[in-house]
């Protein structure tokens, strides 16, 4: 027993680097695995709405007719459940700290209309699929007849 048991540690603290940082002049380094905030690669998103159904906080809104995907960042609890549920893997959590927001609003992302090239590629893919299906059908019929 005795007192001043913490003396050594307290004195040595005088000669150490401070443990705190001067926020906001100095920014904290975000670790690679940080669940920062949700980002959607809207070009890849097919607006299927699975993320909306998965979200426990009701932070997401997906409207296929109006062609948008929206997130209410004040509702989002950063659970990352939507990123795991997304069939196109277009949702990701960006490991960075966000600036404090000054207003409460929803972030709405409209899916861009597909370009000429993309439309053509889509048509080509569709045609190729159709052709393959027709061929397979013909082969099956031949087998049955033969």
């Amino acid at each position, binding site marked *: *027993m005795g*007192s001043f*048991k*913490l003396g050594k*540690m307290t004195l040595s603290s005088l000669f150490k680097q401070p443990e705190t940082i001067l926020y906001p002049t100095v920014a904290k380094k975000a*670790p690679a*695995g940080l*669940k920062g905030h949700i980002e959607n690669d809207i070009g890849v998103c097919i607006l299927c709405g699975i993320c909306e159904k998965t979200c*426990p906080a009701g932070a997401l809104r997906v409207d296929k007719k109006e062609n948008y995907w929206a997130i209410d960042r004040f509702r989002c609890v950063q659970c990352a*459940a939507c990123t795991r549920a997304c069939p196109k893997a277009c949702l990701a959590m960006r490991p960075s700290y966000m600036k404090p927001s000054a207003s409460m609003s929803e972030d709405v992302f409209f899916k861009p209309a597909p370009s000429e090239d993309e439309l053509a590629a889509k048509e080509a893919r569709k045609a190729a699929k159709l052709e393959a299906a027709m061929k397979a059908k013909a082969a099956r019929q031949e087998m049955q007849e033969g």
Partner: protein
Amino acid sequence: MSQHTVIPFGPQHPVLPEPLHLDLVVDDERVIEAVPQIGFIHRGLERMTQTHDYNQFIYIAERICGICAFGHSLGYAETIESLLGVEIPPRAEYLRVILHELSRMHSHILWLGLAADAFGHEALFMHCWRLRERILDVFEATTGGRVILSAVIVGGMVRDQDAAMLQMIKDTIVGIKDEYGQLVNTFVNDSSIRSRLDGIGYISKEDAMRYGMVGPFARASNVNNDVRCLGKGGYGKLSTFDPIMDTSGDCFGRAKVRALEVLQSADIIEEMIDTIPGGEVAIPVKHAPEPGAQACNTLEQPRGECYYYALSNGTKYLERMRMRTPTSVNLAGMAMALKGCDLADVNMIVLTIDPCISCTER
């Protein structure tokens, strides 16, 4: 003839970390009786199992308490896994124990800081919370969150941790051990602290058993009800496990048990990291439980044994979910310990049960 006065204490009070209300019946400076009252932060979280499916509820379960957040998501996931008859991969069990013990360390170090603050040792308070910050940084690097981790899912863990990450956890723990040792030495041997804690809020072993006390509060009165001894999940893989016990039954005993449990948790984590098996960390779980199926589970939270019960109705939404948290049991013991104490010691005694009222009320 002496006259009794009733002093209302809390729910908003500078020395209380939690919204607990006490009606203190005092005679001069001595507390004759303490009548606890809760009900200020009931949020109806158990009811939300009926509006959120069992996968979504895990994120609500971890919001039951900010400090045992990981423990609640773990206890809930284990309950649902036994309801569904799912066995999780061994690596996930190890990772769960590692994170659970890390959260015990952070919870106890936080408590030690609060206790230091309560008996007026500001420097000790700062040093405790400084060390706790290292553990929060580990959480942030491994799971992406500092307090609410969202690391558990029904069927395993969200993320695997690679060898480098596990080594980082180990290095951090080894790194704080020396400084933490000095803090423990202060708690256990400093005469000014001892004069504030020794013999205050004494509870005998018999009373602790009679009032069904749990956690470090009971272990300080030499009652062993550490659920980790049952060896569930990853705890069954430990080579030895001896709960930390003390016979003094007073505030000092409770502080000492918690201070030493941090070192024990550090040892458990090191052993788990050394022996962790490889393989998957989660299995997909999609099916709904059988109608009428029931499951229960106990888990040693930082504050003591927590009990979980789930009843299924055959859908992905549970019929009923119930948790009995450690503080709801310990409040009776606390009211007992307050009888006959000095008014100035009330905050110290309330603090030594490590009350978590938001757990209790859910």
